[in-house]
């Protein structure tokens, strides 16, 4: 049982297989290989095709072989000259193996040629089947809204040789919706019109051809489709009437897409004019002259033309049953003059730079227009453009036949043209022929000159700028002179800088007489004179009163002297750098000494005065000798300025110190001065002062005349006289100055008493101006 069950599918399979085989054998009859057809397109070549059938498997090439024989070679069978490579089961016979009007026998055999499956016998022309026509084209001809005609055209197949064969064509068409093809019979021309198409759908059209007296049609061409909508319908219509001279005119029309396109005189033109009321009414007249040179045009000559009258022109069909179009006009409104002639130009001028030029354009009115009589008055419009651009520039209308155009570019082609219209008309005529204008730019001399000039100007400007920049400081000095720096006469400007305060103080605190003009007389150097008024606390300008003890508290204003300040700058106490401390402090200790000494001297002076006459030498020739104490030094020494002194310019210490050397002239040997050695600023104490004198004497004064140090006169006068004092120099009294009466043997100054406060040391005020100083000449009057 199990065995049977397992066997069952096997048995079933066998049965079904055999059944299948049986069935296939029954259903499909055995088909041998056979020819499907031989066909020639052009009677010079042909090909044969066969079907392999179903009996055996003939897929291998070469399983089936074709042999042919024609009447020429009656004896032998030849094999196919060329089995087609692109299509299987096809054999191609080219021209060399093809001959017309020959009887051909083709056989299909197996590989071994033992079996002959099929045979065909034909003549070449019997199998001729032309290729389908190509280039099927259609145009539409509208009859009415729904009805139209199609005009077809095509080309014969390229393989057919028309001289050889005459082809006949068949056109088939059908409505796209239906399946039924309609044929229009056989044609011999390559065009055809299908009439009476209804626009109720699109249509499909195709063509095929066959040989004249042949039997078989070739294949159909590719179908073309004619759409049902969207094509314009155009009736014949008038395109316009135009006149060029207001004496004649032409009317033209277009036939549209009418079916009567090719037939002449199917359209007729009629016209009528409104005439004057008292002339008989005019009827419609036909075109006086249908143009011969141009179709669809009617020419009205002068006898049929009237101006200022109403025209009606109509286009009719041949039988006048249909009126296609009508227009109305008056002659003067349809005038479009001919283009002007004789367009000419002359050069007016070229610009300086040579880049643009002006021309004068002139032309003549068209010959057809009678301008001379005034029949037509024309207005002209000139248009010009650069040849490279597309835009035309139009110039305003002119009534004259000349026009100037400005600003055209040199070295470029310009195209100019003119057209005209009637005065107060609306329609322009055609443009005239263009005239080309070309002006080469002249030598660029003018331009180069300008360029050179500009370049030169730029160079100049650059140089100027460089000069200005390089000489900036100097220019600045010239244009904006600097404020002169601080300069005090007799004071080295170095001292005015920062850090040199002490020197400055000493200098400024010194007596003006003993100051720098002795050694630094530079008249051209502008000194800043001190402004005494601003320095109320400076005791450098002490009045002699101030030297008196008692007058300390009095109002001694050092600045009582009017201070003339010529200098613009003032190195004064107003300058923050300069000290403005009460200078009198160093003075003060001196003053009691001074007064002391004065007093002592006073006493002493009184005494010896009368007696000292022998010792006192009066200055010759002078009533009283004045001298000035130019400086009272910190050493206590007094510097007197000799009258006859020569230039004081010999300053010993040039190292910025104010050293005052009193130089006595050699001739004034009677005068004895004590020249105080310049010391280092300030005043030393009286003790020191005395010590200095020998130094002084040994120093650089070189003058015998010495004056005993004032400050330490009393105790120390004696040591002073080590110096070679020769004479005593009595000095005459003066209200301002303290006169040194004489110098006694002890070499102490004996100040002469006078009405003014008794001999006092002369501490002269600081004289504001150089003029206030005692000049050396005046010192000569100082009596020892």
């Amino acid at each position: 049982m199990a065995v049977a069950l397992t066997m069952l599918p096997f048995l079933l399979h066998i049965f079904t297989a055999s059944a299948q085989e049986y069935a296939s054998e029954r259903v499909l009859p055995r088909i041998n290989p056979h020819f499907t057809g031989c066909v020639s397109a052009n009677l010079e070549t042909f090909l044969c095709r066969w079907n392999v059938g179903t009996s055996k498997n003939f897929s291998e090439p070469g399983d089936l072989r074709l042999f042919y024989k024609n009447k020429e070679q009656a004896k032998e069978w030849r094999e196919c000259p060329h089995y087609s490579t692109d299509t299987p089961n096809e054999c191609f016979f080219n021209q060399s193996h093809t001959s017309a009007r020959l009887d051909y026998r083709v056989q299909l055999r197996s590989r071994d040629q033992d079996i002959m499956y099929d045979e065909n016998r034909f003549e070449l022309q019997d199998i001729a089947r032309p290729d389908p026509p190509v280039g099927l084209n259609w145009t539409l001809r509208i009859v009415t809204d729904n009805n139209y005609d199609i005009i077809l055209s095509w080309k014969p197949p390229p393989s057919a040789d028309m001289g050889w064969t005459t082809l006949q064509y068949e056109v088939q068409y059908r409505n796209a919706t239906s399946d039924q093809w309609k044929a229009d019979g056989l044609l011999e021309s390559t065009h055809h019109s299908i009439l009476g198409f209804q626009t109720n759908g699109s249509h499909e059209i195709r063509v095929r051809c066959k040989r004249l007296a042949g039997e078989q049609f070739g294949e159909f061409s590719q179908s073309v489709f004619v759409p049902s909508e969207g094509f314009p319908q155009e009736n014949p219509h008038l395109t316009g009437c135009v006149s060029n001279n207001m004496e004649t005119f032409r009317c033209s029309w277009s036939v549209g897409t009418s079916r009567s396109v090719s037939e002449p005189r199917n359209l007729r033109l009629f016209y009528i004019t409104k005439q004057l009321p008292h002339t008989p009414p005019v009827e419609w007249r036909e075109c006086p002259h249908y143009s011969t040179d141009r179709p669809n045009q009617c020419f009205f000559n002068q006898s049929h033309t009237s101006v200022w009258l109403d025209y009606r022109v109509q286009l009719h069909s041949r039988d006048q049953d249909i009126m296609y179009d009508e227009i109305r006009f008056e002659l003067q409104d349809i005038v479009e003059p001919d283009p002007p002639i004789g367009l000419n130009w002359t050069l007016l001028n070229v610009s300086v730079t040579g880049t643009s030029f002006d021309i004068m354009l002139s032309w003549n009115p068209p010959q057809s227009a009678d301008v001379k009589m005034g029949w037509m008055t024309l207005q002209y419009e000139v248009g010009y453009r650069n040849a490279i651009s597309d835009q035309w520039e139009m110039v305003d209308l002119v009534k004259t036949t000349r026009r100037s155009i400005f600003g055209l570019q040199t070295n470029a082609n310009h195209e100019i043209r003119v057209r005209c219209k009637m005065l107060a008309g609306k329609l322009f005529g055609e443009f005239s022929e263009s005239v080309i204008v070309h002006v080469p730019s002249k030598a660029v001399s003018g331009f180069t000159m300008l360029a050179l000039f500009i370049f030169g100007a730029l160079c100049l400007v650059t140089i100027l700028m460089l000069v200005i920049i390089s000489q900036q400081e100097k220019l600045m000095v010239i244009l904006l002179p600097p404020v002169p720096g601080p300069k005090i006469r007799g004071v080295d400007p170095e001292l005015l800088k920062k850090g040199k305060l002490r020197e400055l103080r000493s200098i400024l605190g010194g007596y003006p007489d003993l100051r720098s003009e002795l050694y630094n007389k530079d008249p051209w150097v502008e000194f800043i004179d001190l402004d005494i008024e601003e320095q109320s606390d400076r005791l450098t300008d002490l009045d002699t009163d101030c030297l008196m003890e008692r007058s300390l508290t009095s109002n001694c204003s050092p600045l009582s002297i009017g201070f003339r300040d010529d200098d613009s700058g003032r190195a004064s106490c107003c300058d923050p750098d300069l000290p403005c401390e009460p200078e009198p402090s160093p003075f003060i200790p001196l003053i009691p000494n001074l007064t002391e000494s004065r007093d002592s001297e006073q006493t002493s002076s009184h005494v010896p005065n009368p007696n000292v006459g022998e010792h006192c030498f009066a200055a010759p020739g002078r009533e009283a000798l004045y001298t000035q104490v130019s400086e009272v030094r910190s050493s206590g020494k007094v510097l007197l300025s000799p009258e006859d002194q020569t230039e004081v310019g010999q300053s010993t210490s040039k190292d910025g110190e104010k050293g005052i050397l009193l130089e006595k002239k050699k001739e004034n040997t009677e005068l004895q001065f004590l020249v105080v050695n310049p010391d280092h600023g300030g005043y030393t104490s009286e003790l020191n002062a005395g010590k200095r004198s020998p130094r002084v004497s040994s120093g650089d004064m070189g003058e015998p005349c010495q004056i005993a140090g004032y400050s330490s006169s009393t105790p120390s006068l004696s040591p002073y006289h080590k110096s070679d004092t020769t004479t005593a120099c009595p000095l005459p009294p003066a209200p301002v100055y303290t006169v040194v009466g004489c110098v006694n043997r002890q070499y102490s100054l004996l100040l002469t008493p006078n009405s003014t406060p008794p001999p006092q040391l002369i501490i002269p005020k600081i004289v504001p101006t150089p003029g206030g100083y005692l000049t050396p000449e005046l010192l000569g009057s100082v009596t020892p």
Partner: protein
Amino acid sequence: MNRLNKMTVMQSVVWPLLLWPCLQTVSVPLNCREDQGGVNRCPSISQEKLLDRVIQHAELIYRVSEESCSLFEEMFIPFELQLQRNQAGYACITKALPIPSSRSEIQQISDKWLLHSVLMLVQSWIEPLVYLQTSLNLYDVAPDTLLNKTKWVSEKLISLEQGVVVLIKKMLDEGLLTTNSEQGLFHNDAQPEMLESVMRDYTSLSCFKKDAHKMETFLKLLKCRQTDKYNCA
């Protein structure tokens, strides 16, 4: 409306300014009144110059009338009706005047006839223009330029008439009365009924334009004959 007003204001300012030079040259009045005594008080002016000035006048009138007509057409006439201004049923006022209608015809008529034709034309339009002006003034949206132009034209026409009268007197030695004789022309030819006054005015304007062209052409032909008799014929 504002824009229209502005435009019209501008135009009414610009237009007289533009015309000013023309007016200067053309608008010198000719005090040629014919008194009863027949004393001719015309300032002496040569015939040639007079003819030139008359021609200038006529040309200017023609141009301005053409501009007025275009303006009117633009504003009021739809395109379809523009070509139908001479529809059957109406015609220009001066259709009754025997005016030659072709160049050859015109060349054949005499100077005298030319001048008389011109005078007839001029005189027959003086009153209708006044009527046209009043009609245009009734429009709501008539631009001022249009009104000014028509006004100008009607004024100039009167001076043209005077000029032509003087010319006739000089050239033909005829005396003519002015203005009054042809007044009846306007009333004689009954205007056919218009559906709209717009069409009537349009017809009026275009007819006048045509007649102005005629005047200008005749006068120019006259001038040509004066200067060069042989070439003009």
